[in-house]
């Protein structure tokens, strides 16, 4: 018995379960290493750009002092190099763009998901996507030739009758004058903002539409069964469900608006004045500054431009991060796996 006991205990020690994990096959090992190498390569490339841009801040601040952030003028020949006017102008143009495009994007997204007949829905979604694919230079041309002459009229009207709002005031001109050069009202931050809005709308709209379309059908039907009108469904189900999509789409559009270059370059005329009067001719954005200043810049000025580019990158990065937080918070990704 005791022999049997010892006999049975010793095999227990030996009875360690055989490892069924035979390790990865060679092809998988190559795959993992290869994938990791590609990932690392992209990390190095993209990361080094960010780092490189950041490092340009140091010699720039060294050369031009902290006035780089507080100086409005960018006149390298006078050793006045600052980004303040450009940052202010960038925000001004982007703000106009967002104020115009977000309501339009919201209405369009609601129309596509809630109002459009089902045969029209597909083509409209395509049209909005196409709007995002149209090159910005074509929007720029559209804005310059088709929009600007009409917008000048509107700007004159606004500055004539709405000038009690400081935003629409245009100091130094008389909008009631019998003869005014209408070009005085052109090339302003407001018009550039309208053109940028054309580019922002489809981006914001596409995201909002995607989120609205996923509003749970049961909740919609519940609202309808309780006697809600179409607007009642939108207000009580679609909008609360899509709130994070709306905010995310807005921020995503803002991120795009901040970095837009060519359309702004076609519309704006350069000016270093920081003003809240958005109808005033001339303004400056960071991307426009880079596009006009790079060709005859010395190495030091290139560094300063890169530093300005980093400021722009930093602003867009923060905006996009906020957008990402709201987009992931939306319930849109919560689809069930099969």
């Amino acid at each position: 018995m005791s022999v049997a006991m010892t006999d049975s205990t010793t095999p227990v020690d030996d009875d360690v379960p055989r490892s069924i994990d035979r390790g990865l096959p060679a092809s998988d090992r190559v795959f993992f290493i290869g994938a990791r190498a590609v990932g690392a390569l992209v990390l190095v490339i993209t990361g080094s750009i960010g780092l490189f841009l950041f490092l340009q801040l140091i010699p720039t601040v060294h050369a031009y002092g902290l006035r780089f952030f507080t100086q409005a003028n960018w006149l390298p020949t006078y050793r006045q190099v600052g980004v303040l006017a450009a940052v202010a102008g960038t925000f001004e143009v982007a703000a106009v763009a967002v104020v115009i495009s977000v309501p339009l994007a919201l209405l369009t997204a609601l129309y596509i998901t809630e109002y459009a007949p089902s045969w029209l829905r597909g083509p409209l979604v395509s049209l909005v996507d196409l709007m995002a694919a149209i090159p910005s230079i074509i929007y720029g041309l559209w804005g310059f030739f088709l929009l600007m002459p009409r917008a000048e009229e509107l700007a004159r009207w606004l500055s004539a009758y709405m000038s009690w709002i400081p935003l629409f005031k245009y100091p130094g001109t008389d909008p009631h004058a019998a003869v005014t050069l209408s070009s005085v009202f052109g090339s302003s931050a407001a018009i550039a903002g309208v053109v940028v809005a054309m580019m922002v709308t489809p981006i914001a709209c596409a995201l909002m539409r995607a989120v609205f379309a996923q509003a749970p059908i049961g909740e919609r039907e519940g609202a309808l069964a309780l006697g809600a009108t179409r607007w009642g469904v939108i207000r009580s189900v679609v909008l609360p469900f899509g709130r994070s999509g709306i905010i995310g789409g807005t921020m995503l559009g803002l991120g795009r608006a901040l970095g837009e270059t060519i359309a702004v370059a076609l519309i704006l005329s350069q000016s270093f004045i920081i003003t809240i009067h958005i109808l005033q001719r001339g303004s400056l954005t960071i991307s426009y500054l880079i596009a006009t200043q790079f060709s005859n810049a010395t190495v030091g000025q290139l560094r300063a431009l890169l530093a300005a580019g980093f400021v722009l990158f930093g602003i867009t990065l923060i905006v996009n991060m906020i957008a990402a937080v709201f987009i992931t918070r939306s319930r849109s990704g919560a689809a069930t796996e099969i």
Partner: protein
Amino acid sequence: MTTTSQVAAAQAPDQADEDQPRKVNAGTADDRFSFAGCFVGSGALVWVVYDRLLPFSGTFGFIVCWYFAFLAIYVAVTAMSQPRPIVVDKLAGAVIQGGALVVFFAVLSTIFYTFVEGRHALIHLNFYTQTMNGVEPTAPLNHGGILHAIVGTLIEIGIAVVVSFPLGVGTGVYMAEVGGGFARIVRTVVEAMTALPDIVAGLFIYTVLIVGVSVQAGGLAAACALGITMVPIIARTTEVQLRIVPGGLREASLALGTSRWRTVWLVVLPTARAGLATAVILGVARAIGETAAVLLTSGETTFMNLNPINNPMISLPLYIYHGFQSDQKFAIERYWGAASVLLVLVLVLFVTARMLARSRPGRS
């Protein structure tokens, strides 16, 4: 027998009429007439007040005032016969449909206007087969063309795609299929770099390659700038497209004893193929119209250059941008023509992407 069948035949249409389901979407006659009446009435009112009484003019202001007058009258008319929730519903419907109409009108007007302005140049065959080499900007439209810009665009985009597609898709596969702590770092950086404005990418290439290493401004530098902006976008969309591949497919493949690599290659990627193609084509459509990055890196030329390493190479958006600074009649018509060609390229890519997306396999 005959009588019963006649009766049945006479009754049948009646019954079919009764069985027709009522259209719940269609409004009543009251709805339609109040809409039409408000539309016409507000137009007439605004015409009298805006155009005749007040010192305003202009089509744009007229339409804006008309719209707001319409909203006000429509609300008032509806309120006469309907309870408050219905009035709010009608108002919201009018606002939403009006806003959507503005957006669709703006897109279509952009496309239409480009082709209308470009029609002078587009009808000349030499516009597509010749370059501007030795042609004065003031020369009439039957001289010279934009072949050099079309070819330049295709070369730059080709190089950019060849470089960025493997890198982007590889990174996307790594983030979605391999994962791990390092993948999280890669994802964070890649997501951050999608915020990089195009002009800053162009300026980076200009500083590092053209000023720093003294690579000649040309196709290669432009392709690098385009590639830098495309890699993070392709990587991110690839990851998204791979994540919507149902996990069940992966598990089924692994349960059959397939290795991870063969699962990705034979199951995951083929399932997501159409989505990936769509993502890449849309990325290319964006890059084709990209002006800012190219402006800094490719230089300007009027003749054909097939060599991306030496000598400047012009692309369509850049040709338009430089043409914009001219005020010669023929130069203007020529760059509008170039804009139309660019738009056609984008439209073709876009339709291709749509058709690929429609035949998407693996949709559950």
